[in-house]
């Protein structure tokens, strides 16, 4: 089997460095696209018409699979999502349905807030920490550090996602699993 060829890192590749600057220990880090085969986001059952939730779930899963050691029992993991515009694809679909006098799909109701895919991730990976969605990466990293220092979490999964429809036409995402230097043994 041919090794997967990495793609050039994007600006999202700076996430681990920013986390280190914020005083966080990076346990694992991934980005999308990461390899040349990252050209189609795997579908996620129950989420439709937008790549926001499937992509977020994919990068989160990669980050969680690549943690260096098994998660110690009882570890509380927060989910911190960082996005400039959120699921703008779904928002555009809803607005179009409303403007056409139609009823939007009930599935769009469930995915209209980023919390829904966080709930999927939390259930799939037993992440029992707080769920937060904010707009800026420095805010997201500060919140991750604060939640750990505040003992509401032992570690945090920080996921940044920006859909192409909001910018250059390409979906970008990155995820890091972080903790604080003094919380190696939660």
């Amino acid at each position, binding site marked *: 089997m041919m090794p997967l060829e990495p793609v050039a890192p994007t600006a999202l590749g700076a996430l681990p460095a920013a986390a280190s600057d914020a005083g966080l220990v990076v346990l694992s880090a991934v980005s999308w696209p990461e390899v040349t085969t990252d050209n189609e986001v795997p579908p996620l059952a129950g989420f439709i018409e937008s790549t926001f939730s499937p992509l977020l779930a994919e990068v989160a899963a990669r980050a969680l699979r690549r943690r260096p050691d098994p998660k110690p029992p009882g570890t509380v993991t927060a989910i911190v999502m960082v996005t400039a515009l959120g699921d703008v694809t779904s928002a555009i679909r809803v607005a179009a349905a409303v403007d056409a006098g139609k009823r*939007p799909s009930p599935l769009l109701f*469930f995915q*209209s807030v980023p*919390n829904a895919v966080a709930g999927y991730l939390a259930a799939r990976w037993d*992440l*029992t920490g*707080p769920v*937060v969605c904010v707009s800026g990466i420095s805010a997201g990293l500060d*919140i991750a550090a604060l939640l750990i220092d505040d003992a509401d979490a032992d570690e945090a999964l920080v996921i940044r996602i920006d859909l192409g429809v909001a910018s250059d036409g390409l979906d970008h995402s990155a995820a890091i699993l972080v903790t604080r230097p003094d919380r190696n043994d939660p």
Partner: protein
Amino acid sequence: MTGTAVLSAYGPGTEALLSGVLSGRPAFAPVQRFDVSARRVGVAAATAGSPQLHAEVARVVGEACDDAGLSAADRARTPLFLAIHGDPAAPRAAAGGRTALTPEAFAGTVAHTCGLTEQDLRCYMSACVAASTAIGDAAAAIARGLASRVIVAGGYLVEPDQFALFDAGRVLASDGQVRPFSTGRRGLLLGDGVGAVVIESSEAAAARRALPLARIAGWGRSGDAFHPCQPRPDGHGLARAITAALQRAGAVAADLGYINAHGSGTAASDPAETNALRLALGDAAATVPVSSTKSLHGQVLEASGVLELIVTLLALRKGMLPVNAGYLGADDGCRLRLVLDEPLATDAELAMSLNCAFGGANTAIVVGLP
């Protein structure tokens, strides 16, 4: 907390909100603001006219600064944490202009309008725990010396897109009333809510001789790890947030004189919250007065945490607890000491505000009289 300001379905101002919730009369009425003829349900708790979110958030944030007595110099050093779903204009903007319509840009213009620093501003988009998470984060940052003062605001005004989504999701109450913890409850109804609170360290308040309205005594956040949009039925996730908030407050369950419940009025959420209260509070869950004021002012989404915290502190300061409206009778899965029929006089000094959201996100904020 040294300053508050609000817009609710009862009109502008904290006096209108307090008198509205203490009247016990829900603010729900047929929606006039936009066409609801294609919707299953056409009722919400909306204030008069068609207020614009940016103008109302800026006005309310400014009023909270005035209420706190913040000088121009104080404001210029104070960051804004804003809880919103997004810029309402973004979904209909031309593709090229959409990138300028981020929540952060929205918050930046509010901060600029109000003379606040545009450094360190944040937007929280975590659905119905957005504002309460921001309040917890602000309090935690101040307690740790990372900030001396933060303004937390939240805003949602009933509009056609979210209304259509909630209608499509069949979660709106088809009988036009929200009946939390009651038999026969049929769901939630949306409402207008814009609120802002000034949170600062006691030292910062004392330095400018500001009198505190209330204190944020404790906070807790947790996740259910259960489902994208259903709460964990056994209440364990929310119970952890409640326990953490009480521990931070140095309080026990019996110290609580009131709980402003999440109380969405949906079939699954109310019994899950009841279980959480029983788990976290033990015997006190049967005695502490509880009401969900969503039965009066509606579900104000991202702004819920700040509007309901303001209701809670207004109730404590007035010594009157608002009713849990719409009640038809007991539900065995929701047995709590609900405030029913008329407001309950109280000398309580400590209360808790609970919020839950999709994704199993939970928050608990403990607020006390100064």
